[in-house]
């Protein structure tokens, strides 16, 4: 009954069980938030922390987050690591290949705003938010796995509030 407690539902008991009535929006967004499959998009240091988050101690899977190698199967890009000017168009391409609704997490200082490579670097994009729209920013260089988990929980909260007509 866990799921029913968290959703606005109307439960009508009938002999042998019950009928649950709820809005399409709530059931859709709830299921989506609970299984955000992310694209394995690691470019630099943050990718190691992303791997560590997926590995034994932090166990990303318990949030329903499983990595996918193909953008067509994923709901979320975790942009983990520096995006250079050469990589920028590829990130956009991958984002465009994903199906709606799609989300982006900017992980680490480089993706938030250039990070340690803001000054004196001729090759680094100063923030990915002028390439793709970003939903959650996670600062840190690199962010700890706990921060990443917190960022994902924040995204889940956001996803739960979205309605179907918001999908562009």
């Amino acid at each position: 009954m866990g799921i029913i407690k968290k959703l606005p539902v109307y439960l009508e008991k009938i002999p042998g069980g019950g009928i649950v009535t709820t809005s399409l929006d709530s059931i859709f967004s709830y299921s989506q938030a609970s299984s955000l499959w992310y694209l394995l998009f690691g470019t630099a240091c943050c990718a190691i922390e992303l791997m560590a988050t997926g590995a034994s101690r932090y166990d990303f899977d318990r949030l329903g987050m499983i990595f996918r190698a193909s953008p067509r199967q994923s709901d979320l890009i975790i942009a983990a690591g520096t995006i250079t000017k050469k990589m920028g168009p590829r990130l956009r391409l991958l984002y465009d290949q994903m199906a709606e609704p799609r989300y982006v997490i900017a992980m680490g200082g480089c993706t938030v705003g250039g990070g340690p490579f803001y000054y004196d670097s001729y090759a680094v994009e100063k923030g990915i938010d002028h390439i793709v729209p970003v939903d959650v920013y996670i600062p840190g260089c690199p962010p700890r796995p706990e921060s990443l988990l917190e960022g994902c929980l924040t995204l889940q909260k956001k996803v739960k509030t979205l309605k179907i007509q918001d999908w562009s």
Partner: protein
Amino acid sequence: MNREELAKYLLDKFSDKIEPLETGKAEPFFLLKKPEDLVEFCRTVRDDATLRMDFLCMMCGVDTGENFEVVYSLASIKNRLRFDFKFPLPYDKAEIDSVQEVWAGANWFERETWELYGINIRNHDSLKRFLLPDNWDQGFPMRKNWDAPDFKRMPEV
């Protein structure tokens, strides 16, 4: 062979080609007098039985503000030796020969030097962009006087 013996051996053998450099610390550091000698010098130190410099640690360009320099660091895995040499290049005649035929691994180092400094490499098999984006048109970014509209220098504090 220790450092002093190596330096002495090299200076005796190549007295017309190299001279010692005082700014070099740690390992023997030489100045190659004529850039034209480069390939021949490299081949000789690689094939010389006492030296056998079979390993190119790295090769890079330097912009000192007055001219270019090209630095080579060599090592011998067989005889456990190491030394470096360099030579200056004027801005208007920045061109060197490729040492690819001596050490195949020089290929990318030279390509990088060409791309970031604009030092032309003769006899190189693939001088194509590789570190910078394919549509890069802002010149040679590692030069000291290089600048671009979105390039920010760290402010002095």
